[in-house]
């Protein structure tokens, strides 16, 4: 998983480099000034790192119900974040008229944030799969190590969001 994360980091680095390279080079259309930092949803995503950590810790101690609670909270927080991204995009597309083809800002913004949202989606699918398995009683204490690997991925998604957030909403503006 660490290797896979290494590969993922490299992919994100390229997209971030592209974003930074093109910052301020947009010739027409909306600029990063139209963005509003999605603080609430970012807090959702970042706190989900903590909840998934609690979930795995609970599983390690063999507390199944506590594990399920924290795990489901993580899914809800992740879904909230994804919903937030969706709303933001809807606002940008409908109200600001910014799409991936509008200008360079649209291209780099949607691809970078979209790449991250894609990873959140994959993470949610993995989390949901585990919760379905747990529902049928297939996730036990001895599986803590495997579940931990998924949490590793989830932490990675969160850390990437910190970077993307800084790049897009702080530096890029």
């Amino acid at each position, binding site marked *: 998983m660490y290797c896979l994360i290494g590969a993922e980091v490299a*992919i994100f680095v390229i997209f971030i480099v*592209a974003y930074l390279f093109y910052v301020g*080079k947009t010739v027409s259309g909306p600029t990063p000034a139209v963005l509003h930092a999605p603080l609430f949803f970012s807090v959702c995503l970042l706190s989900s790192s903590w909840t998934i950590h609690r979930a795995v810790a609970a599983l390690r101690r063999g507390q199944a119900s506590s594990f399920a609670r924290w795990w489901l909270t993580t899914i809800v927080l992740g879904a909230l974040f994804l919903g937030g991204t969706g709303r933001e995009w809807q606002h940008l597309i409908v109200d600001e008229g910014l799409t991936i083809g509008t200008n360079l800002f649209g291209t780099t913004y949607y691809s970078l944030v979209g790449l991250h949202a894609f990873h959140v989606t994959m993470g949610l699918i993995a989390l949901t799969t585990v919760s379905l398995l747990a529902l049928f009683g297939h996730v036990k204490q001895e599986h803590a190590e495997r579940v931990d690997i998924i949490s590793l991925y989830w932490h990675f998604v969160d850390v990437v969001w910190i970077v993307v957030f800084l790049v897009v909403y702080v530096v890029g503006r």
Partner: protein
Amino acid sequence: MSTADSLGSPETRTAPRPLVDTVHGWVTTVDHKRLGILYVLFGLTFLLIGGVEAAIMRIQLIRPLNDFVSPQVFNQMFTMHGTTMIFFVAMPLLFGFANYLVPLMIGARDMAFPRLNAFSFWLTAFSGLFLYFSFVGGYGLYGAGSAPDVGWFAYAPLTSKTFSPGHSTDFWTLSLLVSGFGSIGTAVNIIATVLCMRCPGMTLGKMPLLAWMNLVMAALVIMALSPLTAAQLMLMADRYLGAHFFDTQAGGSAAIWMHFFWVFGHPEVYVLVLPAFAFASEIIPVFSRKAIFGYPVMVAATLAIGFISMSVWAHHMFAVGMTAGANTFFVLSTMAIAVPTGIKIFNWLATMWGGKIYFKAPMLFCIAFLFQFLIAGLTGVMMGSAPFDWQLGGSYFLVAHFHYVLAGAIFFALFGAFYYWFPKVTGRMYSETLAKVHFWLFVIGFHLTFDFMHVPGILGMPRRIYTYEPGRGWGIWNFIVTIGVLFQAAAVLAFLVNLVRSSLRGKPAGSDPWDAWTLEWSTTSPPPEYNFGSIPEVKSRRPLWDLKHPEDPDWKYE
């Protein structure tokens, strides 16, 4: 069956299994040895295809104003030749060897993730088939042939919808995207295997150099293939979603594609050449009857190459026009990478120095590898200085240089590896006579083609032209270059005949025909499915030496 034989089981011959069963067994296999063989067979098939494409180009260029193929077909040929040779010949062959050898050499029973391994192979296989589907798919069905024709590095804006309508570039992008996923999967697997599956006693410092170099190679794959994947995603967004990453009309940059591509492209050279180093580092000591000279330095040099190779990419772009600062940096880093590479060459020479050298086919190929890699490196240093590159970058001199690396170094080492491990994989000896025929024909053909290819480059012949005017003085050189192809084709034919004939009718090889020292030779040939009856324990870098010479074991000195 081999399993039964090796265990000395009394049952003699069972009825041959039906073909369907055999095919099913190979298609669904997760055994690292079978996947390794599949990789190699896949690579060899595409080697033939890529070779035919090269031959078509050379026939077209044999004399001025030739009209063997149209310019359009010529463009498709060099694009497909380059893409095929890098992604579907060299990488599968090297991954195949890594798959087969790494677990055996570190005393493991399989790779860390056998199913991921199979998945990666099939991704690679289908992406290769997909690329070639472009000849018949898309508009090809109407006889238009829509194979990619944008060059193997597909510079923007040539790849945009405007200049590359239809689906040819999409075939290229998608195929490389998918094969990239396959390569990353294999790389993850190799790293996990080497780090977690070594047998007891095998510390990192006692690991065979082949495992070390494949470890670094896998790390490079992860760092290099991922940017390519990202760049392909961007290109697809450009082509399908109307994004503007590389769209110069909307303020996008064509140069950033070059950066993204070469951030992959240069480490890729080391992805390919490190396994070649690995073969040489295993073969040369065995046929010199000496332990490798300077093992720790070899490891350090490998790591140094890995690190430096990440910071040399823009030496492919001197002619694009960068700032003086960038030029200086990339010239210096390019010069710097020659140092660890030079260290390796001296270490191999020092291994041979004073050794009792056996000139068998694997060793012959490795010696040729040493010479040719040296020359490739020297022209590399020449091209690495920006002013020289301004003059000759994009000429046939450059083409000759990188073919010296890819064919002269990597393929020679690969052929050496083929002969060296052939007895292990098939359980039979190859024919030494045919192997020598292969070697000499290939040496002659290689030098005819690629030595003389430097000359038209110096005389100003640019790469990728489909024909040229008479009276430029290029004709005779191109003629010689094309003649060399004949020898190379004959050599490859001898190689294939040898492989097929010897695997069917060769003499039984026994488990250790070379009196070698690494763990793969301690098990039967071919190895049973579980590799080792009991997991071996090692005390030194040459466990089999210790076993054969209990009176003077290596671990006393290491």
